[in-house]
């Protein structure tokens, strides 16, 4: 028997036994065949879909690169004062052009921004932005808000302000920034009360945004708000001090240090002290009953104090709380209050083993 005829002879009984789709009499085998075929079809379908998505993404990427290659030199030339004609913007390239336009706005100022706005007017960026603001997708709205902000059209203010009440904090941040660009004097009045109320808003990021707003308006709104909010909200709002004029910030801090009762508020306020003008309040708080306040007072003395504060810090070296002693020792070891040997001798002179130990610890840390 040849090998071919031997294979045929074995194949016939296999088919008769029901191992073929058409001849399968056993329902389990028929079901297995069916499931196998469906799985194969789905796998092939998914593979084709992945390939199609990849091809679409490559096409989109190439188109984006082509648009950028056409737009960048023209836009750069416009930014630098030239007047080359602008390429046409098709609907599907609007996102790429608007993104390039807003990213350049982010990095530039002065005449360059005005020239970009002239380009924005030529391509009707306002209409593009309004269309994006009307869509549901967050990315569309972000681009719309950023564009409207830079265009600075006062008539857009109310629609942009509506986004301050959006549930998504990143959209609120974009809206706040746009409002500050549109009307730097009006925006603090809309942003600050929501910043106090919304625990999910990142205050330092909003502080950066408000840093571009009218400083006097921010200060007066902040001061008014401060009088009405809870102590927890006061602590949350303290990063805003970094964007206020130093004198106004000190005034608000002085008011807090003099009148606040809650140790967490006092501690947070002490962490913001950067001016020697507040030393009187800081020195007083070195005797506060809450050790967390004394700790922050010692740290503040280390930042802004001078030789006159050395005795206060030496006194804190004998505090019952390790953290207070540690912060006082770190302050003394900073070099602002005397050299290594001098500080060691002063600590030894206190006759307190813990004071001497903590100063040695702080000096060793600084030397490491």
């Amino acid at each position, binding site marked *: 028997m040849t090998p071919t005829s031997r294979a045929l002879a074995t194949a016939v009984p296999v088919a008769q036994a029901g191992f073929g789709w058409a001849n399968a009499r056993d329902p389990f085998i028929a079901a297995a065949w069916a499931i196998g075929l469906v799985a194969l079809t789905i796998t092939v379908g998914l593979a084709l879909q992945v390939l199609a998505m990849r091809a679409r993404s490559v096409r989109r990427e190439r188109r984006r690169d082509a648009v950028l290659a056409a737009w960048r*030199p023209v836009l*750069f*030339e416009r*930014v630098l004062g030239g007047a080359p004609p602008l390429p046409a913007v098709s609907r599907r390239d609007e996102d790429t052009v608007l993104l390039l336009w807003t*990213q350049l706005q982010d*990095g*530039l100022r002065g*005449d*360059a921004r005005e020239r970009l706005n002239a380009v924005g007017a030529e391509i009707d960026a306002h209409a593009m932005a309004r269309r994006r603001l009307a869509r549901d997708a967050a990315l569309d709205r972000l681009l719309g808000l950023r564009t409207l902000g830079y265009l600075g059209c006062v008539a857009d203010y109310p629609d942009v302000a509506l986004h301050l009440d959006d549930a998504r904090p990143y959209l609120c941040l974009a809206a706040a920034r746009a409002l500050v660009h549109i009307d730097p004097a009006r925006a603090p009045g809309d942003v600050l009360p929501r910043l106090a109320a919304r625990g999910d808003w990142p205050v330092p990021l909003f502080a950066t945004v408000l840093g571009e707003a009218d400083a006097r308006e921010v200060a007066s709104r902040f001061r008014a708000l401060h009088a009405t909010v809870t102590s927890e909200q006061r602590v949350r709002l303290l990063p805003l001090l970094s964007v206020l004029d130093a004198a106004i910030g000190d005034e608000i801090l002085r008011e807090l240090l003099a009148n606040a009762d809650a140790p967490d508020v006092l501690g947070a306020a002490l962490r913001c002290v950067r001016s020697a003008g507040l030393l009187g309040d800081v020195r007083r708080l070195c005797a506060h009953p809450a050790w967390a306040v004394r700790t922050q007072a010692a740290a503040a003395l280390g930042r802004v104090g001078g030789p006159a504060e050395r005795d206060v810090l030496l006194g804190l070296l004998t505090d019952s709380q390790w953290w207070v002693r540690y912060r006082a020792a770190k302050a003394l070891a900073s070099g602002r209050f005397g050299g290594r040997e001098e500080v060691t001798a002063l600590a030894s002179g206190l006759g307190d083993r813990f004071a001497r130990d903590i100063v040695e610890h702080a000096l060793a840390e600084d030397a490491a």
Partner: protein
Amino acid sequence: MRVGARSSIVIVEDDENIGELLGFMFRRDGFDTVMLRDGRSAEEYVAAGEPAAAVLLDVMLPYRDGFAVAAAIRADPRWRDVPIVMLTGRSLAADVERGRAIGVTDYVLKPFRPPALLGRVKSLIELARAG
């Protein structure tokens, strides 16, 4: 003082559009430019490449920040006298203090005015060549 003879500017900026704009602006003014996108490649370039006329350095960079790159530039005797201008979007005072110890020549706050930046870099190059 020895600075690079070619009028080339090394631009280290991770923001693609701003980096391209800076490159365009300096090329438009007759400079050659070397565009780098992160701190690591900047350090590699400094170690291997010819000294440039000036380095424009962003503070916030991937892998190694602008201060680390500036320190690497100052540590290399061939690049030691090349003016370094840092582009900073953060607190200028803090950056100036940190950069002074490293030897950063000048700072430009972001967002910036392109003509002012160009003028500043050109005068620093002239000063370096004259000095």
